[in-house]
C-alpha cells in the first residue's frame, strides 16, 4: 500500500483506472465476436455430422453414435434460414419469419411482465422476511415446496381458477402464462434478495443506528444497495425462469399467439416441413437471448459504480 503523506494525494491508485478501462473495452470487443464464431462452429458441426456420421449408427471408442440423419431429421442450416423468408402455409400466407417474430414478441411481452412481477413479488417477500424473522421461518418451507411443483400441472389449475373470475378468459389466457412465469421467477429473487439484504456489515448497521435512521431509511440507503450484487445474478436466473415459465405454460394452456404454442404446432408439421420447426426454435432462442441481454444491461446499470472486481 502506498503511504499517504502531506495532502494525501495518492496518484498510483488513480492512474491504474484508465488502463483497466481500455482492457475491458478490448475484452468486450472479443465478446461481441464470440457469438458469430460459436454460431459458425455449431453450424459446421451440424453440417459435418450430416456428411461424416455413420450411415447406420455405430460406436467410436465405446461411445454410441446415432445413425446419420437425413434432411428430414436434421435439415440443412441454410434450409432453416431460408425457410424464414418463405410463406408459412399456402402461397398467400404470411412470411414465416414475420409469423415467428410476432409470436416471439408476443411471448416476450408476457415474459417481461412475468419477470417484473417476479422481481416485485420476490423482493417484497425478501424484505418482509428480513423485517420479520417469524415470516422467514413460516414461509420459507412453502416457497421451497412451491418450486418443486411441476408448472405443467399448475397451469391448467390456474386457468380454471382465472376462468371462474373472468367469463371471457379466451383472450386473456396470457395472464395465466405471465403469472406462471412470475411463479418461477420470484424464487431466485427472494433467495438472492434475502442474502443480499442481510449482507450489510454489522458496523454499517450500527452506523445507521447511530444516525437514529428508521428501519425504512436503513433499507433504502443501506440494505437495498448492499443487496444489488446478490440481486444481479438472481435476476439472470429469474429472467431465464420467466421465459421458460411463459413458453411452457403457453403450450400447456394453448395460447395460440405465443412462440411456445408455435413450436408445438410446427412440431406436428415437422414430418412434411422439418425446417419449419427450427424456425420456431430460433424464435424461442432469440426470445431468450433478448431477455438475457435486457437483464444484463439492467445488471450493468445496478452495479455501475461498484469496484471493477465485483
Amino acid at each position: 500500500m502506498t503511504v499517504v503523506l502531506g495532502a494525501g494525494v495518492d496518484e498510483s491508485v488513480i492512474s491504474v483506472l484508465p488502463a483497466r478501462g481500455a482492457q475491458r473495452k478490448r475484452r468486450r470487443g472479443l465478446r461481441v465476436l464470440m457469438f458469430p464464431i460459436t454460431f459458425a462452429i455449431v453450424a459446421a458441426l451440424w453440417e459435418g455430422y450430416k456428411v461424416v456420421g455413420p450411415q447406420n449408427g455405430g460406436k467410436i471408442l465405446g461411445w454410441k453414435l446415432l445413425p446419420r440423419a437425413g434432411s428430414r431429421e436434421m435439415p440443412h442450416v441454410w434450409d432453416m434460414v431460408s425457410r424464414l423468408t418463405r410463406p408459412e402455409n399456402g402461397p398467400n400466407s404470411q412470411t414465416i419469419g414475420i409469423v415467428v417474430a410476432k409470436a416471439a414478441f408476443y411471448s416476450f411481452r408476457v415474459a417481461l411482465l412475468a419477470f417484473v412481477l417476479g422481481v416485485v413479488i420476490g423482493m417484497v417477500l425478501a424484505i418482509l422476511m428480513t423485517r420479520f424473522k417469524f415470516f422467514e421461518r413460516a414461509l420459507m418451507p412453502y416457497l421451497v415446496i412451491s418450486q418443486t411443483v411441476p408448472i405443467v400441472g399448475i397451469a391448467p389449475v390456474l386457468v380454471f381458477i382465472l376462468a371462474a373470475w373472468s367469463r371471457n378468459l379466451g383472450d386473456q389466457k396470457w395472464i395465466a402464462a405471465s403469472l406462471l412465469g412470475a411463479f418461477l421467477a420470484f424464487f431466485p429473487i427472494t433467495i438472492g434478495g434475502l442474502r443480499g439484504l442481510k449482507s450489510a456489515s454489522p458496523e454499517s448497521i450500527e452506523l445507521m443506528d447511530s444516525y437514529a435512521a428508521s428501519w425504512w431509511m436503513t433499507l433504502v440507503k443501506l440494505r437495498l444497495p448492499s443487496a444489488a450484487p446478490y440481486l444481479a445474478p438472481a435476476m439472470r436466473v429469474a429472467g431465464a425462469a420467466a421465459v421458460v415459465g411463459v413458453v411452457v405454460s403457453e403450450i400447456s394452456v394453448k395460447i395460440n399467439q405465443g412462440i411456445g404454442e408455435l413450436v408445438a404446432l410446427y412440431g406436428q408439421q415437422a414430418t412434411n416441413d422439418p425446417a419449419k420447426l427450427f424456425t420456431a426454435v430460433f424464435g424461442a432462442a432469440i426470445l431468450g437471448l433478448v431477455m438475457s441481454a435486457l437483464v444484463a444491461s439492467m445488471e450493468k446499470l445496478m452495479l455501475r459504480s461498484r469496484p471493477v472486481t465485483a
Partner: protein
Amino acid sequence: MSAVEVAQVSKVFNLGTADQVDALVDIDLTVEQGEFVSLIGPSGCGKSTLLRLIADLIEPTSGTVLMNAKPAHQARLDQDYGMAFQQSGLFEWRNVQKNIELPLELKGWDKPTRRARSLEMLELVKLGQFAKHMPWQLSGGMQQRVAIARSLAANPPLLLMDEPFGALDEMTREHMQTELLRIRKETGTTIIFVTHSIPEAVYLSDRVVVMSPRPGRITAVVDVVLGSDRTEDTREDEQFYDRITEVREALRGAEMGSAPLGIEDR
C-alpha cells in the same frame, strides 16, 4: 455540564443463561467538553461495549449514560455524536462526497446545503480534489479520512471512535493521529477513542482510561500532561515515554503481574 457522564453502568450479556458474561461492572466515567479520552485495555475488557453504551447502540443493564445532561437515547435521536469504526464503513456505491452527505440526508438537509457542507468537510480532511472518487479508489488512510469527515459532517459536539486506525500501517497511522489532533483543534470536538495501542492512546489523549477484563472495569486513569500542541516531535519527548510507561504499568497492574494480552507495545 459534562460532555459525557457514565454513572454506575453495568452490562451483562446473555443474562440468566449459561453463557452469561459480565461485560462491564460499575463503570463511572465523566468526560468534559473538548476533552480527548482514550479507552485502552486487552481484548474482552469491554472498551468497545462501553463506547456502544455511550452511543446508545446497546442499553446498559443498570446505570445511566448522559450526554450533555441528556439521556443517551435522546442524544442519539438528536444525532449529538458522530461515530467512526475500524473498517471505514464507507458505502461502496456512493462516491466520497455522497458518503459524507449520508448523515445530512438523514437529517433532512437540502441538497445545496449538503453539497457545501461536504466540500467543507473534504477540505478539513485535505481530500478536496477527491469528492467524486469512489471509496475503493482510495487508500486505507484516505478512506479513514472520509469516514472522519462523515462522522463530523453534521457538526456533532462529540466523536466516538472505535479503533479507527487499527487497520492502517504504522506510518499512515502516525500521520492520521497528527491529522486527528489538528481536526480536533479546528473543530473543538470532544473525542472518546478506543484503541489497544499504548503510544497511540498517550499521543492523542488528555486522559487514558485503563480497563481490564473479566469482569470489564476501569482500573486506572492516567493523566497525560503533554500540553495541547503536540507534533511529531512529541513522540520523542521524554514526557511521552514516561506516560507510556505509566499506562503500561497500569495495564500490568490490572492483569496482576502477568503481561497483558492483546496490547500493542509499539
